[in-house]
């Protein structure tokens, strides 16, 4: 019930999906081959089971290959709203009488649509509006009488479930929690039920909860406001330019019917991967998978692709938000998607210039010149499925003008373009990310998340380890080449928050 939005989350995702030393990777891969079982059901739903018998617990992770980027125009935020709805129960969980409740829900949605129709007509009639709204509210109250509040989540928690949550990003939606491993069947039962039988219960109240989430993360948060504006300026055509939480008016405009259409299109077996990591028996998992997910509808269906491609930017774009908080700046260059051959070189570049105390931006701008409180550069924002941004975050020290810091960042980028990165720096970056991967393999949730998302994006969980070959292929020349090719003024977007009176 969270959004992949903060820069910190982004940074850690970048590190997690990083790289690994080749020898170590071969060794790790061989070990994991023994622990991993995978299978695909007849309907196309793929499972990855990772055995880890450290303790009698298991983590369950459902990865759906749908995010903000897939949303239809006019319904931004719908992936996230649907994610919230997945906690509202099923045909017998969370309700006292589904047969009656569903009639009220259907009527409520019809009424809301009629209200919307009037509201956004060219000449709305106030009487009709208030009449429709009154009826809608009455139906909403009536629908509430059937609701058993949060029963779905409670069943999980009462059975010892922990870490129950979900998140929606530009590229994906995921759902996860952990259970004592003997309760694995409970997860199968509930997960299959909620995705086979979505009810859209409490839909319109939950949209208000989502709006509060939007106020908290975006409207009342200086960094949230900056990021929302930033992607909207950087992308003119591609849906990466839209907020994952949705524009306020789109949240208003989204109906249960829209959510149902969205579910029908995107929640199909070929678009979902499930990973289970922990103290489980793969044979039994397979049996349960067939029992519970075998009849999941949508065999052979493929989710519609995103066909919009961001056109080449014709010149630098700049904006400032005047506000009440201290300055922060984002500098983004249009880069590539994670399937592009330059992706790894750009990721390494970001890592080398800004990660760790030995990196050039830290050394010069933070330590020596004391211009910045923080500088970070990373590749793959706001997602990586499509053409993404190479983003630099710059937080100036007190009394340092943004212009000064910005210019110094460009100076350093120019030096990199002239080929200043050394083999030692490149090796160090590889070593650190390899160790990062190893450290990320020590818990069930991390394993399930990593393996499922890698399968979904790369077609094979082994790419967690095999991606290193691509990183190993990156040379100093490549780093220089991608710096010169992508880090150019023409495709740059620069956005900042500044104090209103400066």
């Amino acid at each position, binding site marked *: 019930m969270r959004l992949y939005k903060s820069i910190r989350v982004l940074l850690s995702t970048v590190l997690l999906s990083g790289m690994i030393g080749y020898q170590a990777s071969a060794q790790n891969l061989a070990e994991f081959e023994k622990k991993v079982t995978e299978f695909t059901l007849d309907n196309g739903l793929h499972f990855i089971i990772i055995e880890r018998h450290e303790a009698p617990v298991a983590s369950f992770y459902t990865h759906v290959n749908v995010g903000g980027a897939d949303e239809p125009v006019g319904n931004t935020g719908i992936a996230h709203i649907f994610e919230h709805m997945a906690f509202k129960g099923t045909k017998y969980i969370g309700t006292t009488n589904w047969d009656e409740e569903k009639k009220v829900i259907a009527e409520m949605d019809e009424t809301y649509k009629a209200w919307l129709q009037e509201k956004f007509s060219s000449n709305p009639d106030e009487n009709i509006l208030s009449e429709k709204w009154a009826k809608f509210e009455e139906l909403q109250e009536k629908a509430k009488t059937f609701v058993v509040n949060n029963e779905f989540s409670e069943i999980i928690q009462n059975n010892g479930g922990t870490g129950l949550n979900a998140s929606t990003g530009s590229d994906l939606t995921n759902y996860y929690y952990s259970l004592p491993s003997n309760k694995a069947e*409970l997860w199968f039962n509930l997960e299959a039920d909620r995705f086979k039988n979505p009810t859209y219960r409490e839909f319109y109240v939950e949209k208000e909860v989502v709006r509060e989430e939007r106020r908290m993360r975006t409207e009342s948060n200086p960094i949230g406001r900056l990021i929302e504006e930033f992607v909207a300026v950087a992308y003119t055509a591609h849906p990466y330019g839209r907020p994952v939480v949705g524009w306020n008016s789109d949240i208003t405009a989204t109906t249960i019917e829209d959510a149902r259409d969205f579910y029908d299109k995107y929640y199909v077996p070929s678009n979902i991967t499930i990973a289970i990591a922990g103290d489980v028996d793969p044979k039994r998992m397979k049996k349960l998978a067939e029992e519970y997910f075998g009849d999941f509808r949508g065999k052979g269906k493929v989710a519609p692709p995103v066909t919009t491609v961001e056109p080449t930017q014709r010149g630098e774009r700049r904006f400032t938000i005047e506000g009440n908080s201290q300055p922060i700046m984002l500098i983004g260059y249009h880069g590539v998607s994670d399937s592009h051959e330059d992706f790894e070189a750009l990721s390494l570049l970001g890592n080398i210039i800004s990660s760790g105390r030995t990196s050039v931006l830290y050394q010069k701008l933070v330590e020596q010149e004391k211009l910045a409180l923080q500088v970070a550069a990373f590749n793959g924002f706001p997602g990586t499925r499509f053409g993404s941004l190479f983003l630099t975050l710059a937080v100036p020290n007190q009394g340092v003008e943004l212009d000064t810091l910005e210019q110094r960042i460009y100076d350093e980028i120019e030096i990199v373009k002239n080929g200043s990165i050394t083999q030692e720096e490149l090796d160090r970056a590889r070593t650190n990310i390899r160790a990062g991967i190893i450290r990320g393999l020590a818990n069930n949730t991390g394993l399930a998340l990593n393996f499922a998302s890698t399968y979904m994006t790369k077609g094979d969980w082994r790419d967690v380890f095999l991606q290193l070959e691509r990183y190993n292929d990156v040379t100093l020349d490549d780093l220089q080449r991608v710096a010169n090719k992508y880090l150019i003024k023409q495709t740059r977007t620069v956005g900042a928050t500044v104090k209103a009176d400066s």
Partner: protein
Amino acid sequence: MKRTLLFTLLMMFAVTAAAQKRYDEIKYPKLNEFKKADVEEFQLDNGIKFYLVEDKELPLIRVSATIRTGSLQDPAGKEGLASMTGALIREGGSENYPADKLNVLLEDKAAFMSTFIGQGSGSASMNILKEDFDELLPVFVDLVSNPLFPEDKIELSKTQRKSGISRRNDDQGSIANREFSKLIYGENSPLTRQIEYATLDAISREDIVAFHKEAFVGNNMTFGVIGDFDTKEMKRKLEKAFGSLPAGTENNLIYPEVNYSYPSTVNFINKSDVNQSYVLVGHIGGLRENPDYAKLQMMNQILGGGFAGRLFQTVRTDLGLAYAVGGGYGSNINYPGTFSLFVMTKSSTTAQAIDALIAEVEKMQTNPVTKKELDDARDRFLNSLVFRYDSKQKILNERISNEYNGLSKDAFDKYVEDLKKVTVSDIQDVAKDYLNPDKVQILVVGNAEEVGDQLQKYGNVNEIDITIPTPKSDKAEASGDAAKGKEWLGKMADAVIAPGTDLETITTVSTINQATPGGTMSIKNTATISYSDYSIDATLETPQGTMQMVVENGAGKMVMMGQEQALPSAMTKPMVDEVKNSYINVALKADNLSAEYLGMEEMNGKKYVSLKVESTSSVTFLLDPATALPAYSKVTVFDPQVGQEVETVSSYSDWKVTNGVAYSFAQEFMSNGQVTSSSKVESVEIN
């Protein structure tokens, strides 16, 4: 017929196969047996305690020390010392491994070392690949015992912390939690005091060296070591590496007494750039050692325990008032915790959300919870117990934490036993005994204009000032002759305002020439200033149109082209300060102000009497020795944009007397040597 029957049977089969069984029909196998990891413990002669756990899953070793120290021990006026010391051990490196060398060494090996000091404990840890252990252990020991604390890193650390201070009012949630804590524990408690520009400036390298020396000794250290190693061999290595550390004396961390009197208060902090209110409601909490601890924890589960808690169910799910809501009765080990409930809700529903929070507390007191609620809450806890020990690291951490906090090894087991015995009436009893919904403190950080008067129904609203105290200027404080100062101040007062003159307000018509990046802009200004209540009413004719600016009781607004806009206090406060520091006001209030004569000072080739007056801030007037009228005034103010103090100088000439009041008809204002604006007065009207 038969075919129909067969068909019906098939259909029935199909239906049963399609509908999956209910979740409550599942039969679960027994939980697999599971042996908790063994923890090996030993102690060195110098007092260091070690707890070792083998974990061979990955080729890593993690060594982590808990140090008995904390910012509780920061001397008053040097807040930030503990925190800086903690960070600088790692940031500055050691004698043998200075920062640059250390950074390269560690990053080449993808090894991490970090040091940190928090409020009631410190830590030093390393996380490395096992193959690097023998090489990096001596480096770690050297870092912990012989840190270098170089001056340049101390400066860097101060710069960064000051930037941090300048940003501390940017985030609504951090403001709310910080200020609420002050409401509960008091402004100057070691539990809540803040690091300020001035306290950082007061910290010297010697302070840091001494703080480290006292804290990082054997008797204050407890180590946890976990990873891929052989215990026997590891013991030997640790003995050798840490054996020579000094034993020192055990630090005595003293937590302040908390005297709480259950005041009912309503507090507001304005943040004009938000559209959501961050609300905290509560009072003091309790101690972990309280025999009712388990009952209170169960009460917390029912009231605010995640998705299943009543607050989430009511405020979020039913009412749709919030995304984030929760809270409970906090019990700390060393000092009383806080009972607090929080909610983030849109400005217009601030009071509705507060009412909903308080109603839930009252409900806990007036009605017993249901048996099912209690059983569910208990199940949630007991069934998830296995996650408390699902990694060896967690087992080790809990052991060290109990040891550090003086809890017995079986403290947790005892807690679990107590939990099992909690009854429905226990919950109601503790809710009545420990919660006081009618004696709460309410804090809202939100948008004043949008929130409006919603809070007034709870009582007098106290506006909390969160202005960041500005650092003192680097310049040495000039001090001079107070008696002579008072004498010159009297002369100046009489020169500006003839004795016996009754002065309340002054209305001036003037033309201001303001330097802007696009050239000089001329603005006609008609302003009335009251020197009794410091209200300002100014009408400015700007090239963009007429603008009216009004400041009353510290609150300001601006009206332009029919649009009214509130002025933030960041803008109105300097305006009011300027009035207070003006020669008119100083002359008017001369009897109540102190002043110092600083001698004669030359300015643009003329000699003046330098008179420092303590008004809202220090103002230095340069008086014409013949007339005692000020030719210049100098004020040093903190400019948050520049992050330092800036001196502004004003010059006054063309004096004319109106109804006994001398007024300068030509004024110039200079900032850092540049003329930023000037003003020519056309007319002056008294009262």
